[in-house]
């Protein structure tokens, strides 16, 4: 689904990602683990075409439909089915919930389909229907997260990149979001790449994952193995506190 080989990405003069290689398989939830500054967000930004890639290859899909990520603009990636739900949610605060959702379907020009997708979003998160005409900036963090997720799903992604969905949320809301992610993955077959500070929750949800340390790939493995790895347990899973 997503093949990354020897990826190098700079931000300004800082060499953030160094020779990163891994693969995400179709239909799985893949978790990116690493401490702050390890390059997780940069990796997602590079994959969605926001930050340019210095060298290496990154390909979405395979065969004749494969999309070269390295030379693609963000709109090409969205059109190809790769949708990125960014860190801090980044909803359009001055626009209404409905306008935010419509922007999620920006590249879709079939009004009937957009309406159907919006209805599904409202069924998934009923609070968004109530808040339909409210400016997104006035909603709580949890509601904004639901909106950000629903907005990303409006584009009907094949692969969803999700950056820190639990950031600043109450545990109960986080649980609800994770249940929804599980649903999206199982029922709609959406592949998910998950960056999450709560590594324990992320690895329990994921089938596989990798660990980034200072911009380099440390391990790629099944999530169950990573959860058992004593070094990972000590560094990221907060056991022993």
């Amino acid at each position, binding site marked *: 689904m997503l093949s990354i080989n020897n990826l190098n990405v700079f931000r300004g003069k800082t060499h953030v990602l160094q020779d990163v290689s891994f693969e995400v398989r179709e239909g799985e939830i893949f978790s990116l683990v690493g401490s702050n500054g390890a390059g997780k967000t940069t990796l997602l930004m590079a994959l*969605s*075409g*926001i930050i340019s890639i210095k060298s290496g290859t990154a390909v979405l899909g395979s065969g004749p439909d494969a999309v070269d990520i390295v030379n693609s*603009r*963000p*709109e090409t990636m*969205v*059109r190809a089915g790769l*949708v*990125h*739900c*960014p860190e801090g949610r*980044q*909803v*359009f*605060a*001055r*626009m209404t919930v409905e*306008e935010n959702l*419509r*922007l*999620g379907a*920006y*590249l879709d020009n079939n009004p009937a389909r957009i309406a159907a997708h919006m209805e599904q979003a409202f069924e998934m998160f009923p609070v968004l229907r109530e808040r339909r005409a409210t400016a997104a900036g006035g909603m709580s963090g949890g509601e904004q997260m639901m909106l950000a997720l629903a*907005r990303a799903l409006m*584009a009907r992604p094949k692969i969803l990149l999700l950056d820190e969905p639990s950031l600043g949320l109450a545990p109960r809301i986080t649980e609800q979001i994770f249940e929804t992610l599980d649903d999206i993955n199982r029922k709609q077959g959406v592949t998910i790449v998950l960056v999450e500070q709560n590594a324990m929750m992320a690895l329990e949800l994921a089938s596989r994952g990798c660990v980034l340390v200072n911009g380099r790939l440390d391990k790629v493995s099944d999530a169950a193995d990573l959860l058992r790895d004593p070094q990972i347990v000590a560094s990221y899973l907060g056991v022993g506190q």
Partner: protein
Amino acid sequence: MQQMLNALTLGSLYALVAIGFSLIFGVIRLVNFAHGDLMMIGAFSTLGLLQVAGPLWALIPVLVLGIGFLTGSLIEKVVFRSVRNAPMITGFVVTLSLSVVIQNLGQMFLGAQPRSLRLPEFFSSRVEFAGLSMPAIDIVIPVTTIVLAIAVTRFVYRSRVGAAMRAVSENIVAAQLMGISINRVVMVAFGLGSALACLAGFFWGGKFGQIDPIMGLAPGLKAFIATIIGGVGSIPGAILGGYILGFAEVMFVGFLPPEYASFRDTFVFGTLIVILLIRPQGIFGIDEEERA
């Protein structure tokens, strides 16, 4: 009453130019000091078109809008695109330089002497309205401006591309993640804003009868001020700001003793300072958090 009408006409012209300032600033946070010069381009295009249009003169305003759209989007592509991610001050200096370049090129190729511009008779024919007699252009300008102002506002707040413009204005990264092409949105904003400025040039030349290569400087500056009064980035604000400025200018000329009238800008700009002291973000301005 005649004064009110003058104020309405002048305010309309400022509003037409101010809308463009606001559109352009809204999407890329660029204060485009070359924006006023689009008026000059519109006015000289009118002069040229009048020579060839003959009985088809009614098409001239439409063509002027088209020329404005093309010129604006071309300028953006050639000059501004490469400095889009540069610090704000760089963009500022580039627009200022471009303004000087356009004015000087105009003087080189069109001559520095003012030329007279005479629109077809329709615009100067007298119209009786509410017991007043006025040239048709004094009706055409406010009516056209109001129609276009409503159209642009509806476009920005109701259409899909308008929503994309507002999204870019709020959060450029998130907008890109929706699949919005920044280049296209910026092109539309520049094109639309420049088209309105060119049309303002057509009206300005038609109303005052004289055009020259630096004619865009003063009204451009005033329209910029109108944008600030209204609240930068707000379309309704730009329109309101244009009318406030137009009315202030005409009223000060009307009510000040004649020996002060030629210093009207002192009072106009003084009023501006007072408004901004009371409401620093402008009338419709929003306290802006730093954009992502």
